[in-house]
């Protein structure tokens, strides 16, 4: 499903649009939101003015012009990074939105229908949707039941049932009704639907910075101020030598100082920061998760505890028959045969699994119900049993077969024949085996024929393949998993052990989730959970990251801070990974950006101080610091500026895709990132600047 919304890293249309946007974003009112780039912009303008003055005064201007050009490129590249992330995000969202834009809604006014544009709908309006109609906006079914094709959103082709009342009443704008007629009460105003919210999170102009992004911006602004002061005062320091010793300091021109400033301030991370944030949202969207705020995505990286429902998340969702255990005097094949008979009409997954098990294990074919002359007894809440009566030729029931829980069967045997069931040996056997099954996490079902106990069927929760490894990874990342289940303590213990969760709550009532979240939060932990029902709403709201399933109720969806369009319970794990990846990318590029400065110093400081105490045409003493042996002061400065601009472009793919994420402990992750982005950030610019220097000298640009 995720492949459906995959957008290539370099989509031609997105790139063209992004190039256009890079220029539009030069608007100072917009640029000022990014202080680092704003400073570069001012520097670029100043350098242009100086270049023009050079031209008018007919002094050599080529160097200043080149500096100016590359400063403009620096800003444009940063804008481009943001624009391309935006473009990709919008494209993701547009895919979802497209279907919705021209929808005509059939609005109910009194008893009459009115045809209005979907955009004119307001919260509280009722609309009618029939076969073939697109649902015009997010809402809740208040009347009727229909099957709905949600593939436009989820990519899942199987239709889903949406009906009024209950947990499946929510519908999403843009999905298509396949059968029947429903009345939908609109719950959002135009521009406020989830998709619109998502689009606003990927649009740079409307996007609100997330808390950690704000903190990082402050750090970057602080560094920018420091370097601003460094560069301004450096001019005075050189003046000192001019005043006291009449040294030639003409190399320390304004464009050179601006070049130094731009190289030192953290332009790499400053230029890519917003792209990183936006592409984090993109990645969520790619996983069919819609975030209500950027804050939640960051919080996801911090989650310490995951609350997971057992059913559907940890286990496949339904219990399956895994074994037949006959009483000592009964043949196992016979038990299987009878059990299959009893389940033929049982359309529940559990019933089907009994039929399948009998067939797989003993080759007992499914018999046709009509041939058997049988009368099926549906499961009833009263008897807690189901079964079959096989009618003999004289019309009286010949074989009476029942299956049910141990308790139910005991009651069934006892009520009609006044025997002490507990004392019967086959009942005692049943009870013994039943406890064994329960301890292994299964559920025992007893099969009786004509009130004689034949044996048990073991029904078991089947733990999803690979889930244990998933929890193991989570544990390595320091995340504790807690399973929530309605099962009894015994069963829960067994499944918890099999799935490898760290903790569980058995016989959980809906409010237990809320209590558990509060308890963990009081210990300072961040809790994530996923839920769907109305009774999950308080817990979803309390959790630091609450993911509501799209199939869930409106209440649940409003309480959560993310919505999973696939309604997949394991999605929480992916969301955590996306959150972590987002933060890591930010940290790694910040480290890289700061580490880069060392090389730039070694390029520029010797260049501008070259003439200081230069004697007899020889270079000044600080030329020793020119360890890269750059050809000339001008080419050194220009190379540093060019490197500084190009590195932004070079890192755009990394910012968009995020740095590679592996589920590991903090120490391992940190070591690797330090090596790649810290040490790498120290070394790469030395090589890069040297190469550029060689290149521009061979091209004769200086």
């Amino acid at each position, binding site marked *: 499903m995720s492949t459906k919304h995959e957008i290539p890293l370099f989509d031609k249309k997105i790139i063209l649009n992004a190039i256009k946007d890079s220029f539009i974003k030069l608007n100072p009112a917009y640029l000022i939101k990014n202080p680092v780039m704003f400073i570069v912009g001012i520097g670029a303008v100043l350098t242009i003015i100086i270049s023009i003055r050079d031209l008018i005064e007919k002094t050599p201007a080529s160097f200043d012009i080149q500096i100016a050009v590359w400063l403009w490129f620096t800003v444009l590249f940063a804008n481009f990074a943001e624009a391309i992330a935006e473009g990709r995000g919008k494209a993701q969202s547009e895919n979802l939105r497209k279907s919705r834009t021209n929808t005509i809604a059939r609005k109910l006014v009194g008893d009459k229908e009115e045809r209005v544009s979907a955009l004119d709908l307001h919260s509280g309006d009722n609309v009618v949707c029939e076969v073939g109609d697109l649902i015009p906006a997010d809402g809740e079914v208040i009347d009727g039941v229909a099957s709905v094709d949600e593939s436009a959103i989820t990519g899942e082709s199987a239709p889903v049932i949406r009906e009024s009342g209950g947990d499946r009443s929510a519908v999403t704008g843009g999905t298509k009704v396949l059968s029947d007629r429903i009345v939908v009460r609109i719950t959002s105003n135009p521009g406020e639907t989830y998709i619109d919210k998502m689009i606003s999170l990927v649009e740079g102009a409307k996007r609100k910075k997330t*808390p*950690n992004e*704000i*903190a*990082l911006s*402050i*750090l970057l602004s*602080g560094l920018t101020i*420091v*370097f601003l*002061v*460094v560069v*301004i*005062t*450096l001019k*005075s*320091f*050189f*003046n*000192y*030598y001019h*005043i*006291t*010793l009449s040294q030639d300091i003409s190399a320390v021109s304004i464009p050179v100082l601006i070049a130094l400033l731009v190289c*030192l301030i953290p332009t790499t991370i400053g230029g890519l920061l917003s792209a990183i944030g936006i592409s984090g949202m993109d990645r969520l969207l790619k996983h069919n998760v819609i975030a209500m705020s950027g804050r939640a995505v960051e*919080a996801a*990286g*911090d989650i*310490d505890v995951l609350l997971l429902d057992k059913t559907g998340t940890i286990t496949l969702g339904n219990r399956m028959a895994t074994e037949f255990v006959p009483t000592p005097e009964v043949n196992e094949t016979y038990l299987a045969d009878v059990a299959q008979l009893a389940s033929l009409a049982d359309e529940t997954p559990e019933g089907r699994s009994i039929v399948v098990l009998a067939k797989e294990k003993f080759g007992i074919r499914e018999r046709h119900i009509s041939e058997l002359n049988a009368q099926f007894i549906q499961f009833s809440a009263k008897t807690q049993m189901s079964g079959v009566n096989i009618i003999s030729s004289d019309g009286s029931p010949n074989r009476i077969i029942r299956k049910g829980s141990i308790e139910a069967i005991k009651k069934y045997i006892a009520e009609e024949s006044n025997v002490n069931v507990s004392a019967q040996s086959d009942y005692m056997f049943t009870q013994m085996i039943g406890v064994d099954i329960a301890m292994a996490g299964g559920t025992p079902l007893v099969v009786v024929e004509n009130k004689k106990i034949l044996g048990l069927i073991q029904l078991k929760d089947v733990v999803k393949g690979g889930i244990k490894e998933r929890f193991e990874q989570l*544990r*390595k990342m*320091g*995340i*504790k998993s807690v399973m929530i289940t309605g099962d009894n303590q015994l069963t829960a213990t067994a499944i918890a052990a099999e799935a490898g969760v760290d903790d569980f709550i058995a016989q959980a009532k809906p409010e237990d989730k809320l209590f558990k979240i509060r308890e963990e939060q*009081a210990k*300072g*932990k961040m809790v994530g959970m996923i839920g769907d029902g109305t009774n999950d709403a308080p817990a979803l709201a309390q959790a630091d990251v609450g993911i509501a399933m799209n199939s869930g109720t409106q209440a649940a969806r409003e309480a959560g801070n993310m919505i999973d369009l696939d309604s997949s319970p394991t999605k929480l794990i992916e969301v955590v990974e996306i959150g*972590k990846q987002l*933060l890591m990318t930010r*940290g*790694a590029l*910040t*480290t890289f950006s*700061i*580490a880069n400065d060392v090389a730039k*110093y070694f390029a520029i*400081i010797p260049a501008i*101080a070259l003439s200081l*105490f230069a004697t007899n045409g020889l270079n000044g*003493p*600080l030329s020793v*610091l020119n360890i890269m042996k750059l050809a000339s002061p001008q080419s050194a400065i220009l190379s540093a500026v060019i490197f500084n601009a190009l590195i932004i472009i070079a890192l755009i793919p990394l910012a968009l895709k995020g740095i590679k994420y592996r589920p590991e*402990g*903090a120490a391992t*992750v*940190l070591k690797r*990132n*330090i090596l790649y*982005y*810290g040490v790498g950030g120290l070394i790469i610019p030395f090589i890069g600047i040297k190469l550029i220097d060689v290149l521009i000298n061979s091209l004769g640009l200086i």
Partner: protein
Amino acid sequence: MNYLLDFFQFILFLGLLTFLAYYIGNYFYKVVIGEKNILSPLLLKPEKLIYKIFRIDENEQMSWKTYLWSVLALSFINFIAVLLMQLFQQYLPLNPQKLPNVEFLLALNTAISFVTNTNWQAYSGETTLSYFVQMLGLAVQNFASAAAGIAILLALSRAISFRKGTTLGNFWVDLTRTVLYLLLPLAIILSIILISQGVVQTFSSYAVAKTIEGAQQVIPLGPAASQIAIKQLGTNGGGFFGVNSAFPFENFTPFSNFLQVLSILLIPASLVFTYGRMLGNKKHAWMIFDVMMFVFISGVAFSYWSEVSASSTYHTSQLMEGKEARFGVFNSILWSVATTAASNGSVNTMLDSLSPLSGFVTLLNIQLGEIIFGGVGSGLYGMFLFILLTVFISGLMVGRTPEYFGKKIESYEIKWAIIGILIPSVVVLFFTAIGSTTNQGLASILNKGPHGFSEILYAFSSGAGNNGSAFAGLNANTVFYNVMVGIAMLLGRFGVIIPVLAIAGNLVKKNIAPDTAGTLRTDNPLFAFLLLSVILIVGALTFFPALSIGPIIEHFLVQSGITF
């Protein structure tokens, strides 16, 4: 030079420092939390008495704002007191030399200097200040400003270790306990040993002697030992006499020299362990200690190497200009590195005459923010700001929003941390820029060329870093420098204290997230490496341009035989 002897002395010094610091740090932890300790039988009664006299409610807990106001109030009252004492010392007792009143700007500069734990001395002690001012003015400030710095560190460590708290302790209690249990006992022990080594302690007026040539020589005396002990212990550094610990009556024997340089780093190093205990993580304390030790040892080694190699440039066996023959090269540079690493500022050698790269080490030490042991309290809370930055950047790299001891580091903390790091740096750079390009600034320098520039850079680094030592060669008692350095000292002190307490006030309110496998560890070598990198990169990036056209260019010029 006897390299082997120097080496063994250095090892002895480091070993003794670590040993004493560990025990004093743990002892002080007990004092701080009010636990019974070795001195409580003796000092508990005086402590309670002080609370009674000053009407201090021992159990009152202060918010960060109240705590800050208390610090500011104490500083302000002390400032006024020291200022007035100087302005009217002629009319006050204990002035056997009949020294006149101190002129206003100099008095102002001196008052700021001692209240901010800087001890920048634009005056020369023996010709300017009476015994009364030295003792009741300056020596008292040596205790008070040191204790205030330590108290702030204590407030900060509470902020980190309290879960969802609101208060940071009681400033007056912290102040009293620090003076009573830590500073006084150590100062008493040290001054007695110093007196035994020949450091003077007397109220008599200056002695007059006749030299062999028949000339008359005045030998300054005074109650020096008591003041010198606290000047070293409290990282104050203001000497009783003008030439500070290079003067025999201030620092008589190699043993007194060894003790004094040890006391420079003793309390700052001890506080690292106190901090670790307060945070409940000794390994974190060792991590910080190791980082400090590493930079310190590197500084000494580099400085030593520079002295040795520079002497060959000058074709001498040792670079002895400006150094005391009693101490030699090693003890001089050990002191110069220690006094600038810690925010002490006392000297036993003329920093001005050090080889250019030794001068570079002293400058860099101060400019890193004096966090290599640093000033008492202030060194560690300055280091804390760098730890925050490191935690922030590397915390992101492990994929979590950054946290320190389970407390989330968010925009509020980062904002104030940046301000705290920014203010001293900006002051140093801007003031140096003004000093090195205006007539008022340039009039004071004795040397031309890079050395003159270094002198100005050093003056403002020393002021803003609250160090107080001078590179010498700069006439500091001018209107320009008295005022500018005065402002630098104030900004350097309170421009860090306010951010630190603001951060503390916000941190204390936060819940503590438990450690998990996904948490960034702050007590292992990897974090030490990161912290070191952040300190060096941020510090170096800020000051590398200035240093490269100061001491670094001077080094290359000297090598090619160019002097000014």
